[in-house]
């Protein structure tokens, strides 16, 4: 997903759930900041490197693909962008390492999502992170947050499904053919992937940018949905393809439907976090709250555009009657940088970092507990000595303080 959904749509969901304008801004800022909080940014503000929630292109270029490097990548991407659906999933046949990778495939309504949402009670920043993770479980499903050719690879069998009325001339090209659907007719158009990093996706011609195919299993080119380009990130996109893990069974991805479910589930989760529901259950969606705006939301989701920020922003401002400022990643950086060491935790980014470390340590621990070492070792806190990664010392001490209070 992109800034349009993580920032503006999250604002709308929070407002529908009953949060105030200011609270909504804090939540949607935190949700979008999850795509910006890199080691590079943290080093410039003096934050702990382990709190990184994403990696820059340049960081990926230099990323190690030895065991420790892969574990670091997996911790970041599985915790925040590709939350595993089922850590006990059984692919049937396969070696231990294959099964370990298979179990990291992302999907909605998993046990880890419940844990993520429950962890978000601490602060609005934690709520924002949880909403980012929740939304991505829908967009990024069928891909894993670890570099793996055998899980994340795609091949030439990749078709965009265009609604018949919207397909126009381009859909009637040589590669297109008619396909039936119970409710709507779609035409299929074979997708052309190119690997030009500066090239823009061409919606009219069906040319999209993806990562280059690499023969190596652990190449960063095979991380997440890189091989499928930005297709999972576009709300209007419908496509079918053969996932590498899928035993030649075609997967049809209907983003408009998935994104709508993601939105309704966000509203439900946010209402739970506000105390409107006693428990958070999977596969529940607050369609009731959203239904008055269903047509409007679906129109935004279905519109063929690379960036839906303007539409979501207009919808959000209509809902709340307040102006939604454009996202500025540096909005709270100066405050964090200028705060004294003791006061950093009380700043906006201090709380964000705390929430990010909590999410990362929880997901790493759950993966480790499932006998899967792809995200590394999880050290249970021991009062006598600290055995974990140094950056977590501060987080553990904070937890301890809060526990005593």
């Amino acid at each position, binding site marked *: 997903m992109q800034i349009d959904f993580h920032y503006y749509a999250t604002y709308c969901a929070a407002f529908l759930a009953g949060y105030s304008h200011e609270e909504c801004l804090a939540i949607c800022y935190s949700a979008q900041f999850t795509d910006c909080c890199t080691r590079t940014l943290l080093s410039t503000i003096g934050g702990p490197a382990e709190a990184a929630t994403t990696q820059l*292109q340049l960081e990926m270029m230099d990323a*190690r693909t030895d065991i420790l490097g892969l574990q670091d990548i997996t911790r970041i991407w599985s915790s925040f962008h590709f939350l595993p659906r089922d850590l006990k999933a059984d692919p049937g046949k396969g070696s231990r*390492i294959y099964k370990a990778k298979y179990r990291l495939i992302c999907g909605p309504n998993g046990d880890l999502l419940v844990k993520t949402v429950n962890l978000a009670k601490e602060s609005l920043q934690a709520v924002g992170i949880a909403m980012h993770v929740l939304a991505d479980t829908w967009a990024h499903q069928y891909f894993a947050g670890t570099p793996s*050719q055998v899980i994340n690879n795609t091949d030439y069998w990749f078709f965009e499904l265009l609604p018949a009325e919207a397909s126009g001339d381009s859909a009637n090209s040589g590669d297109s053919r008619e396909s039936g659907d119970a409710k709507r007719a779609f035409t299929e158009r074979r997708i052309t992937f190119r690997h030009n990093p500066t090239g823009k996706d061409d919606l009219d011609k069906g040319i999209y940018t993806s990562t280059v195919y690499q023969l190596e299993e652990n190449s960063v080119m095979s991380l997440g949905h890189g091989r499928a380009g930005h297709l999972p990130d576009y709300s209007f996109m419908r496509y079918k393809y053969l996932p590498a893990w899928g035993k030649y069974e075609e997967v049809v991805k209907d983003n408009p439907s998935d994104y709508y479910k993601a939105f309704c589930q966000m509203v439900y989760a946010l209402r739970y976090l506000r105390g409107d529901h006693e428990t958070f259950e999977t596969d529940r969606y607050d369609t009731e709250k959203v239904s008055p705006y269903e047509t409007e939301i679906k129109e935004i989701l279905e519109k063929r555009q690379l960036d839906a920020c303007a539409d979501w922003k207009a919808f959000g401002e209509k809902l709340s009657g307040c102006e939604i400022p454009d996202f500025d990643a540096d909005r709270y950086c100066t405050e964090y940088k200028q705060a004294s060491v003791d006061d950093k935790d009380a700043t906006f980014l201090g709380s964000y970092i705390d929430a990010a470390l909590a999410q990362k340590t929880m997901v790493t621990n759950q993966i480790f507990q499932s006998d899967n070492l792809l995200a590394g070792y999880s050290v249970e806190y021991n009062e006598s000595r600290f055995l974990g990664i140094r950056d977590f010392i501060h987080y553990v001490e904070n937890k301890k303080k809060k526990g005593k209070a």
Partner: protein
Amino acid sequence: MSKFQRVQNIVIGLSMLISAAVLILFPEGGCVYIMLFLAASLILRGISELIYYFTMARYMVGGKLILFIGAVFFDFGFFTLTLSDESNLFVLAYLLGFHAFAGLVNVLRALEARRYKSTSWRINMAQGVASILTVLICMLFSHNETLLVYCYCAGMIYSAALRIYSVFRRTAVVYIQ
């Protein structure tokens, strides 16, 4: 390129430079050592691809490709080994064939990269064209075995230099967030 791949490329580049030096110093028997080194590399690569296939890639859509690649590498390794005790000229002809094939693959990869508008096509094309030119020059001087060896060495040094250069080059990577 990951750090591991960078180290891997430096090691391969240096090995090629050493092989070229050995061949220049001992044009009579140098070929045998190069053939042995080449055979060992191909066999090891083949084995690692086969292990990858049987443990993971066999469950992947299109995973048979890994099996074929592994089998081809393994087979070529042994074939190279069987040629190591043949006459120098015969061995050299085989090496040239191998070099021409590698050059052709590089050119094809460059054309594919260019079609996808990837910026990396130029270096692949340069490597491929240099390899093929080396082979053609060697064929022109095929009556003089020593000269043939030197031509081959020049091509190998050029390829090694390009490989080492590519390690220190910043390459744009598509990264999907």
